[in-house]
């Protein structure tokens, strides 16, 4: 009983809010790349916001349900089809035993989320069900889903209370460029004031080298460090912008390594990480300098917004 994966899609993994407390042992955090869309999927499905859900990349999976269940699809719109009929995203959907849900390709955005009411029956590893595929940790056997996988449902629901109001307005993701806000540091002093200005003045292009570990950028003029750009290896926060010796920045994301020895010019604010998760190679990215105070105000505002949606849907 549960669900069967009839087609795995491009790269589909189980993710939650990430593995907390194990970076000190060298274990990457992992977790959803777009925490906002991930949490909204859970709230629509009546779950705790950090319940494990499927993260789908470009094209989602096809799934056969063996039990009645309520699901919600958010993030990049992969045009879900249920038993041959189009169904809406950002809306709780009741599915019946025997139903087939098929995801297509997203034309905008990159990552979609599929949440299941009551969650998937998967044993957590180090307190999290998130998949770290590069190290074979968590999720379904530590890997992306494949055809034939069967996953149990923890507490499937035939329906939820107030189904008619379980719907939100889907975002529209840009296709050509994004602007993200950045707090300088921790090693902005590894660059001259002019070079720091250049970093914020001139954008960069998102390259094909973009996965759950990081987003590699290409600047027309590589950034120059004051010294050789090496530091005594230290911890790396989500959104850290590392500048290796070649001067081409890398934004460190969910599956980032825990420590690194390159200077980090700035850190993308938490509230803007979803923009990166939904961008694609070839798009342009620009950085806007903000103060710590504003970044933390925005963080608090996004927590409050999520709380308000939780109350509206599930209180």
């Amino acid at each position: 009983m549960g669900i069967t994966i009839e087609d795995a899609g491009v790269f589909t993994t189980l993710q939650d809010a990430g593995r907390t407390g194990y970076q000190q042992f060298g274990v990457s955090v992992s977790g959803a790349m777009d925490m906002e869309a991930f949490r909204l999927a859970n709230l629509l499905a009546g779950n705790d916001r950090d319940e494990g859900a499927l993260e789908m990349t470009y094209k989602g999976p096809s799934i056969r349900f063996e039990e009645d269940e309520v699901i919600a699809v958010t993030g990049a719109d992969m045009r879900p089809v249920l038993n041959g009929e189009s169904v809406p995203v950002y809306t709780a959907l009741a599915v019946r035993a025997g139903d087939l849900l098929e995801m297509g390709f997203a034309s905008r955005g990159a990552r979609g989320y599929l949440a299941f009411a009551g969650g998937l029956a998967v044993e957590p590893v180090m307190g999290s069900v998130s998949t770290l595929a590069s190290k074979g940790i968590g999720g379904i056997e530590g890997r992306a889903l494949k055809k034939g996988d069967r996953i149990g449902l923890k507490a499937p629901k035939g329906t939820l209370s107030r189904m008619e109001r379980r719907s939100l307005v889907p975002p529209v993701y840009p296709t050509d460029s994004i602007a993200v806000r950045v707090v300088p540091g921790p090693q902005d002093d590894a660059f001259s004031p002019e070079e720091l200005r250049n970093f914020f003045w001139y954008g960069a292009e998102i390259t094909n080298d973009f996965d759950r570990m990081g987003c590699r950028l290409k600047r027309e003029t590589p950034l120059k460090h004051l010294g050789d750009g090496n530091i005594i290896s230290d911890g790396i926060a989500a959104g850290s912008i590392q500048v290796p010796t070649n001067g081409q920045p890398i934004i460190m994301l969910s599956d980032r390594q825990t420590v690194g020895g390159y200077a980090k010019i700035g850190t993308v604010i938490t509230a803007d990480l979803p923009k990166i998760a939904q961008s694609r190679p070839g798009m342009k990215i620009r950085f806007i300098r903000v103060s710590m105070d504003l970044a933390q105000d925005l963080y608090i505002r996004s927590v409050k917004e999520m709380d308000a949606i939780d109350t509206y849907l599930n209180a």
Partner: protein
Amino acid sequence: MEARFLPAGDCAMLVQLGDAISLEVNGRVLGLYEDLKKDPVEGITEMVPTYASLMVQYRPDKVRFQELKKILEERAARAGSVSQTRKVIREVPICYEGDLAPDLEECARLQGTTTDEIIRMHSSHDYYVYMLGFAPGHPYSARFEEPFSFRRRETARLSIPGGSVVVQQNLSDLIPFDQPCGWNIVGTTPVTITDFRREDPFLVHAGEWVRYIPVSRREYDRIKKEDAAGRYKVRTIEEA
């Protein structure tokens, strides 16, 4: 050096306690880490101790940058250093024979000495574990006596097997998982370095020491079998 409090985005701060890779600086990092573990600060979600700094992750809806900085200034001042007088040593078996030590002869050539001398230099000193990182349970460790003169290989290998023990200068790392690597492989341990079946999956921790115990190929095979069955436990000793 005065402690520095560096912003790492809206949810993390780096507390830099020195600008050198040394026992003294790392002791202060672990001192602050222990202090915050014993007496937690509301809002801190995770800590990552490294060579010379402690990364503190926190929730700005619980505690904000300036406020946390003030608290950590006080803590860094009172925490002091973890005691370096008591050594926790993990005895890690290592085999320096045949295909388990593919670069042993190369090390001897680079050092201008015999393979026996490389084994002696490598196994007769204890290694301090500054931090874990890069991969789960991967120790960054170093000895303080008789460094090798050689550094990395000219070209890195695309993949070396988990269990390899790699060296350059005074550094010696245990490689928990298959990975690309540019260092020379001096030997191999039969013990699974990171084993999620164990209650504590990590063989060594930051602030502990590694002592390599040379074993024969036969002994290696025996330990490997015991380890696979989940019955092998490395010996841990404490020295004053």
